[in-house]
């Protein structure tokens, strides 16, 4: 009798002990969820070439053909006076013509000079603007490359978050790939997910879609340049394929 009593006490105590232990494990045993993500640090060097094309100025100098002077015809007629008069008239005429011609020539020359100057000025401006254009293009290229890098790192982040939130359906196999389009708002919140290209396995597609919905918000996107966001992350297409599967 005393024995059976002590046995029941012992059984009770032992069970209580083990249940308490199991309960303690159940409550307290959680692995540290914080995972430190090491971002690879790299220094990128770029070769920026600022060498606009040098244009050789080619001022064309037009040689102006000179009009041959008219040779007055001297006629030794009988009427010397008349002749003389006529001669004088002709001479005056000639002189006037000569003068006019000279004047004209001077004007023409001035005009030509002015035009030449204008042309040179235009050429200079054109060169300058060309240089500026080249510079701008170069800058745009650099900017685009930087944007590309930033976009890639954000895209990688999204992909990583997807795979963190992804739960593997039993039908998932290596080599499957689903292209999804995630629509985002500037806070990084996911507002819509559509499958663009199915992997052929609807369960897998759904799981990827679910992963995107489960990620809910990509907080890191808030730090992004708004212009870049508008340009590339309003809608972002992500291809997802499982990495380390056992099958």
């Amino acid at each position, binding site marked *: 009798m005393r024995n059976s009593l002590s046995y029941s*006490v012992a059984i009770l105590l032992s069970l209580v002990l083990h249940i308490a232990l199991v309960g303690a*494990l159940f409550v307290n045993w959680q692995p540290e969820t914080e995972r430190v993500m090491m971002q690879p640090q790299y220094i990128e060097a770029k070769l920026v070439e600022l060498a606009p094309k040098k244009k050789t100025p080619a001022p064309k100098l037009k040689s102006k053909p000179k009009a041959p002077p008219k040779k007055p015809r001297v006629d030794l007629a009988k009427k010397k006076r008349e002749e003389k008069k006529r001669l004088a008239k002709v001479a005056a005429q000639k002189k006037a013509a000569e003068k006019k011609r000279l004047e004209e020539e001077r004007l023409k020359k001035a005009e030509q000079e002015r035009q030449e100057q204008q042309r040179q000025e235009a050429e200079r401006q054109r060169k300058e603007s060309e240089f500026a254009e080249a510079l701008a293009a170069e800058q745009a290229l650099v900017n685009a490359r930087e944007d590309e890098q930033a976009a890639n790192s954000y895209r990688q982040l999204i992909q990583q978050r997807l795979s963190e939130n992804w739960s593997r359906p039993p039908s998932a196999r290596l080599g499957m790939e689903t292209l999804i389009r995630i629509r985002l708002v500037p806070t990084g919140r996911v507002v819509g997910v559509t499958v663009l290209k199915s992997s052929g396995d609807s369960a897998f597609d759904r799981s990827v879609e679910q992963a995107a919905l489960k990620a809910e918000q990509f907080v890191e996107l808030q730090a992004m340049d708004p212009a870049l966001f508008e340009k590339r992350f309003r809608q972002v297409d992500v291809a997802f394929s499982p990495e*380390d599967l056992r099958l």
Partner: protein
Amino acid sequence: MIEENLSIWSLIANASLLVQGVMAILFIASVMSWVMIIQRGLYLRSAQRGFREFEDAFWSGVDLASLYTELTQKAKQQGGTDGIENVFRSGFREFNRLTQGDKADPDAVMEGADRAMRVALSREDEKLNISLPFLASVASVSPYIGLFGTVWGIMNSFRGLAMVQQATLATVAPGISEALIATAMGLFAAIPAVIAYNRYAALVEMTNSNYETFAEEFSSILHRQVHAH
């Protein structure tokens, strides 16, 4: 990487059937060994206490016959006595029976009483030693059982690793972790059992030698009585 829920429960739930079986065995072994530990602890403590109390009563100069009747009453009430009281009762009963006839041979009386006490002693020894072998086997075997579960689990997890092209730590780590739980459980069952076994073995030995010493002393008292006539 897939976010794995690495709580100990999901690890146990995802373990292979054999490893789960090993874990179940170890858990049951642990529960049982704790039952034994507690029960034996209580029993041995009460045996020690009973011995001290009885010795106090015995050497207080009380009449042996009245002590005997008192103990018999107690036995009737509680459905039996334990430990040293049994040794005393069986020895004294045999002595009384043998000395009832006047022509009792003193040597025969002594021999009979001694034998009765020896029998009682060996009964008590048996009672003290109950379930100590179980504790000993849990102590020595459960680490091996746990190790077996671990080896099996790691074997499976490496076999899984062989199928993967990109072998990352994350593909093997959960498997190894779940396998190691078996070893942990084995040790968890074994360590208290080892401690308890060692402690209780020493206690049983001490109690036994106490009983034997008392039996010798009691035998010498009876010897004096039977030869004084």
